[in-house]
């Protein structure tokens, strides 16, 4: 797991998981899995933008693009270029 995966995974675990015993990995469905809903996606997007100094256009911040930590990393890297 690279640094970005670790940071995002840790953030999602800390901020969005209610059950301490629940664990997630970079491929765990976040949106379809009900861990992050469409309203909460806004705060997750804000975290990514603050952390990586990027701006993610709304049309790219889709439930599909945010559904796993791995997909989020792909999105962040696209805008970090």
């Amino acid at each position, binding site marked *: 797991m690279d640094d970005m995966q670790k940071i995002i995974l840790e953030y999602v675990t800390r901020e969005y998981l209610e059950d301490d015993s629940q664990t997630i990995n970079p491929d765990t469905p976040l*949106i379809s899995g009900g861990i992050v809903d469409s309203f909460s996606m806004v705060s997750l997007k804000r975290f990514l933008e603050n952390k990586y100094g990027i701006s993610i256009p709304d049309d790219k911040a889709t439930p599909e693009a945010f559904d796993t930590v791995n997909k989020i990393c792909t999105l962040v890297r696209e805008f970090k270029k």
Partner: protein
Amino acid sequence: MSNIGSYDARVKGFDWSVSEQELGYKKGDVINIGWYCTDRICQLGKADKLALIWEGQGGKEKRYTFNDIRLATNTIGAFLKGLGIKPGDRVCLFLDKVPELYLGFLGILKIGAIVQPLFSAFGDESLHVRLDNAETTAMITQKKHVAKVRKILDKLPALKHIIVVDADAPQALKEREISFNLAQAAPVEHLDIHPTLAETPSVLHYTSGTTGMPKGVQHVHYSLISQYLTAKWVLDLKDDDIYWCTADPGWVTGTSYGIIGAWATGTTQCVLDLGFMAEAWYKFIAKHKVTVWYSAPTAIRSLMKAGEEIVKKHDHSSLRHLVSVGEPLNPEAVIWSEKVFGLAFHDSYWQTETGSIMISNYPGMKIKPGSMGKAFPGITAVVLDPDKYEPIAEPGRIGLIALEPGWPSMMRTYWKNEATYRNKFKNGWYLTGDRARIDNEGYFWFVGRDDDVINTGGHLVSPFEVESALLEHEAVAESAVVSKPDEINMEVVKAFVALKPGFAANPDTELAIMNFIRKKLSPLAMPQEIEFVDSLPKTRSGKIMRRVLHAKEWGQDIGDTSTLEND
């Protein structure tokens, strides 16, 4: 031919007895929603008919016949009785859209207790306020939500039982927690159904108001009469339908039509317990051959945003009737659905307080895209002059949407808040708090709220509640909360915040405050934007003028500012 047939013919000489007769109910009889949705359907010869097709993460699927749900609701009812739950006790459902939510709802009603559904994404403060107000005796929940309950348990002395439906092991449970696994419980063939009558309390749904804390909207078992008939005439549910109501039973649509309306009519319904994803929804419709679909404008707009290509990948030829509720359905959404599904979404309008659909577009009736439609037969709906509270006769003039009380599913009171309940009536009319105009053909056109309540994605959020919670954040000196326009959710929460000395107005502070509200109240209540200000507009008496901020967000005239402090 639709169930309603001719709308105009149904309106003439309408009487709710048409519903009573179909349900075999006579005045003074026992009427128990739990029994009507399960045992009665079995007695009608449909015991082996599918009642529920449930699908969760990873394609996991469960199927229940009407006999299965009869037994399951008996089993849950018997378990609750065994814990000492009595008629009239409040039992909360704090669950995702798992089968136990749907079955628990009816099991609670069968024993005469009052069911209190709460949205499972509520934070601990939202949960505490509602459980405390209702003096809830028991809660049915999942292990993933137990941590939130444990945080507030000390402040809830009335809450005696926390029933966990998926506990890993009994030893993992703590104070007041008990495991109940429906799949492993011995099915209860016979349960003495509590002889509830028409006016026996049934459901307690909490809704937000412009001021004060959330109000518990109390319904009674007689609401079934409205919910059954509207499910037949508006949703047009028929014996061979596969029905999908996308609403969460934490909110009233999910109970009135995601449980009661569906099963009182003996309809097979589907539930998808997944977060919103366009592709998953389209697949679900195709896989289960959904015929009637009841959804919300926010979801429809999200589907529109996902594009038309994705629609074409799946077969939706099973669909025959589409209905929408929650917030105004914009004309573009109606036109879009006609284009991609060959069917128009029929908008419907009602509230937690009304218990059932009040104004709607009906099968077979001309749809005017963007209109709410016409009043349901038996419902007298008008727009009132906001000063005189008298019906406006001339078409096109904007007024307050008001309803003549007396339909079966009208709320009976706000829980322990009779004064607020009485304030909802003027000149004998029930005031909805919404504004509309009526055109010369009798169609209603939604204009907006008549108060500060924010309707985001079809759910009401109280600015007062968010402002109160914001003040509990260490950085916030004062705040004002208003709505701002949003392409998908119609409107979302925006907060104007003045910080205490020593706190910096930067993106990290903004994110910290957003997450604070999300966890304390709910994701719906979380400000989607925070604007840091030095001070807020106030009257000379020091009251924050929300309307000035609201007007700016919506590009409206800010109106009279003569009382503004700094003017």
